[in-house]
């Protein structure tokens, strides 16, 4: 039996107060936050490979895309956290830890904002694509709670990146946005998606992607400010053009917008029914 096991056994046979202390130490070293699932390096590799295969086979498995991101994050997350610490806005995000979902984002208030503001643009984009801010899988496989929050923040802000770059949600534009995120944030998962995402496209779509959107994505993403440091929730009333200039983002080539998915229509109907009452 290994050393810490013998110690564990001795402690468990000792008095209950010592046992509680050992249990607290064990709990805190096993589970750092709600939903935390610690993995050793073998399990991590297994999950990385398995989630990569599954995410490619069925891209609608959002939980597999999320798992791939977490298991391959590596040193990129501490780097992002340090970028956040370098800016005042980023430090504020780390301190306050805002979350983005339909209970923290007041969709009714945002749709009441004037045309041209970021908040209004965001709600318009959500309606146009037919998505809600609720679809993000929580983080499970990052051990440090602060880095877990950085990962969660990246995942929840993905829609803001869509909105600020005016990209819809179909595969071509998702891949283009992954190139943008890779140039801007450097997460390995964005590189994996960027490398393998185009396999699911037709050759015509791939030609348009690599001819028009990828050059824009790499140039714009590389030169823009690190978007993880932006406190989007404090900028609802800011003018979109001004926000883009501040962040160093310019518009991509015109995108083709498909019919919206149904979830936002349902949410919008519920919202307008609430305002009528």
């Amino acid at each position, binding site marked *: 039996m290994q050393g810490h*096991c013998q110690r564990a056994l001795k402690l468990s046979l000792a008095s209950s107060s010592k046992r509680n202390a050992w249990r607290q130490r064990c709990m805190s070293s096993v589970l750092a936050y709600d939903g935390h699932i610690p993995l050793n390096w073998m399990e991590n590799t297994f999950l990385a490979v398995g989630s990569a295969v599954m995410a490619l086979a069925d891209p609608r498995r959002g939980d597999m895309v999320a798992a791939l991101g977490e298991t391959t994050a590596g040193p990129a997350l501490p780097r992002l956290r340090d970028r956040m610490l370098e800016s005042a806005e980023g430090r504020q995000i780390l301190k306050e830890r805002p979350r983005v979902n339909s209970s923290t984002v007041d969709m009714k208030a945002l749709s009441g904002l004037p045309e041209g503001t970021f908040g209004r643009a965001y709600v318009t984009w959500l309606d146009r694509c037919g998505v809600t801010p609720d679809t993000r899988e929580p983080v499970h496989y990052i051990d440090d709670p602060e880095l877990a929050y950085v990962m969660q923040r990246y995942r929840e802000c993905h829609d803001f990146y869509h909105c600020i770059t005016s990209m819809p949600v179909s595969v071509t534009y998702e891949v283009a946005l992954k190139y943008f995120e890779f140039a801007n944030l450097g997460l390995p998962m964005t590189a994996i998606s960027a490398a393998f995402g185009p396999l699911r496209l037709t050759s015509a779509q791939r030609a348009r992607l690599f001819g028009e959107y990828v050059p824009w994505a790499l140039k714009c993403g590389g030169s823009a400010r690190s978007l993880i440091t932006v406190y989007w929730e404090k900028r609802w009333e800011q003018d979109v053009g001004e926000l883009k200039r501040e962040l160093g983002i310019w518009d991509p080539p015109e995108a083709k917008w498909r019919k919206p998915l149904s979830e936002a229509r349902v949410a919008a109907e519920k919202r307008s029914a609430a305002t009528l009452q």
Partner: protein
Amino acid sequence: MHPVRRLSLRATQPWRSLRRPSCQSCRNYSQAEAERTVGESSSSNPRSGRTTHFGFQTILEEQKENMVKGVFSNVASKYDLMNDAMSLGVHRLWKDDFIDELKPGKKGPVKCLDVAGGTGDIALRILDHARETYADRETTVEVLDINPEMLAEGYKRFKKTMYHNTPQISFTEGNAQKLDKPSNHFDLYTIAFGIRNCTSIPDVLSEAYRVLKPGGTFACLEFSKVTNPVLSTVYDQYSFSVIPLLGTILASDRASYQYLVESIRKFPPQEDFARMIRDAGFSTGGDFEGKGGAWMDLWGGVACIHRGVKL
């Protein structure tokens, strides 16, 4: 299965790097301790009812049935796929061995009750064995399961076979601890990979004794204790590392497969289970493994066949 408290590590112990105990038994123990928080607070309350285990958790007895039902509702649609993935197809060999031991139809048609029979693996094998080996088309199997989703999967599978819409197969929802079947009715009672999920094993065994005819056979195929220490280490590693991850990847459901591997560890070892079978009134072989014994190990004890006869 989450702990009650959420601890901010940076706040309390910022020098501590988060590393799990690397030794498997320590991880199992600490995981068990973490899960036990809810259970202990309720079992220490004198007004709470009797408790039982749900994997490594401790829960009230009346909760277990619903929780097990919930687990199997979640896994039903991918049950067969997951069995193949987790056991790399070996579960088929075990079930074939089980049927080869029982030889249904050898001494004439049998009336069989397959409990926790869900997706119909054992029922189909019984009927096929009787038909192919003994040209027996009178053997009947009644599949009983507590979970309607699992039964629906079984019914769907049987629709692809020649037994659909014949008196040879029927599917009923029911509880193994309180069978709605007449006494002294069946020749063969089978339960494969189901008894460890039941709240009270002695109740299941006594019901089995009641519904079997004198001379009838009780047969149970279940995961059991691996005695060989090398195999046991490998098996533990595989169970606790690979299986929950397979559940996450293939079925988006880690919790159900975590329950699965924990419930295997909580099941009594071979000798104890043989004793429980004898306590219910059955006659078994001697208290040893193998030919003439009360049980037969498969793959070193990973799975095990226990048999008893009602005299």
